[in-house]
């Protein structure tokens, strides 16, 4: 546990999001109980910030088993998460409060790979 804590402290310093400027960011909107866009294209080999903006009155829980992410976004609220860097492929996400609401993160291989 002590090892984990010191490891944690070390990576916090090395990986401070405030220091890491200029990362790609993209916005995912929830409107009328749908994700827009339903397909998010993310560049390969970089960490990407996803801003999730909920325009509905009802809270949602953005969740993805493929990405190990879960976050509640309140009605008329906003939240942001980091994903990646990811291998090329597709990663499902959904609203844990309404499983009919689904979307995919697509990571395309860059040219020359």
């Amino acid at each position, binding site marked *: 546990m002590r090892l984990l804590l010191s490891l944690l402290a070390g990576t916090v310093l090395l990986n401070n*999001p405030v220091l890491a400027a200029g990362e790609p960011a993209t916005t995912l909107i929830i409107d009328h109980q749908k994700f827009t866009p339903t397909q998010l294209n993310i560049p390969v080999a970089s960490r990407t910030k996803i801003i999730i903006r909920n325009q509905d*009155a*009802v809270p949602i829980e953005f969740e993805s*088993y493929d990405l190990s992410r879960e976050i509640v976004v309140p009605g008329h*609220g*906003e*939240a942001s998460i980091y*994903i*990646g860097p990811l291998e090329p492929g597709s990663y499902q996400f959904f609203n844990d409060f309404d499983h009919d609401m689904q979307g995919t993160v697509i990571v395309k291989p860059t040219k020359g790979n």
Partner: protein
Amino acid sequence: MLATAVIMFREVLEASLIIAIVLSASRGIENRGRWVASGAALGLLGAAIVAMLANVASSEFSGNGQALLNAAILLGAVIMLTWHNVWMSAHGKQLSTEVKAVGADVESGQRPMAALLIITLVAVMREGSEAVLFLWAIATGGEQGSRMLMGGAGGVVAGILVGMLLYLGLLRIPTRHFFSVTSWLILFLAAGLAAQAAGFLNQVGLLPALGNGIWNTSGILSQNSLLGQFLHILIGYIARPSGIQILFYVGTLMSIFLLMRTYGSNRRDTRR
């Protein structure tokens, strides 16, 4: 209505299984029921507060605060489970003799009562806050609100029943093996919670992923399936784990195991 029941079932299941495990693992400890019940009550109160905070759009909490709280809660539970397991490995032998001879007094000492309370509190609070938000979302959804709430109630009952079945099943394990089985269960449970905490810390950008999707077993066992869900709760199964999650999982597993070996009395007892 069925969809609502399924979602509520899954929210309740994690808390229910964790409580079943600690309740059986603490078998023989006096007053454990009272501590676990207090933990559950405080957990419900905490869940309502967290749900309210998470639903205030303007609050800091709606962003990274939520993930940080989740990570802190999970790591707190890991520490408490560790304490519980180390204590049990030192006193388990004595407790299992006591379980056989009903009415005997356990030697008093620093018993992990606070650990029982906190583990229950945390388990109820974490999933409970999501359940509260979900119910609020469907209740304000308008149409079929009451039918969906009924479905939700059904899901809660089903989730609690499964926990009770696990508890009763664990109690059937012969006393000789009982405490080693529950210790192993808690060991893997704690490792799984630590891996989840790592996921949250990576989500807010505080920890590097150290590689996403180190392997992908979702084709063999989807995390969305019922079995995948069970294994996710009980042993921390993740179909597409990141490097940092694997590191936290293995690190926690080994740390607790070594602590149990160092402070436990099991080895000396078997040689006697």
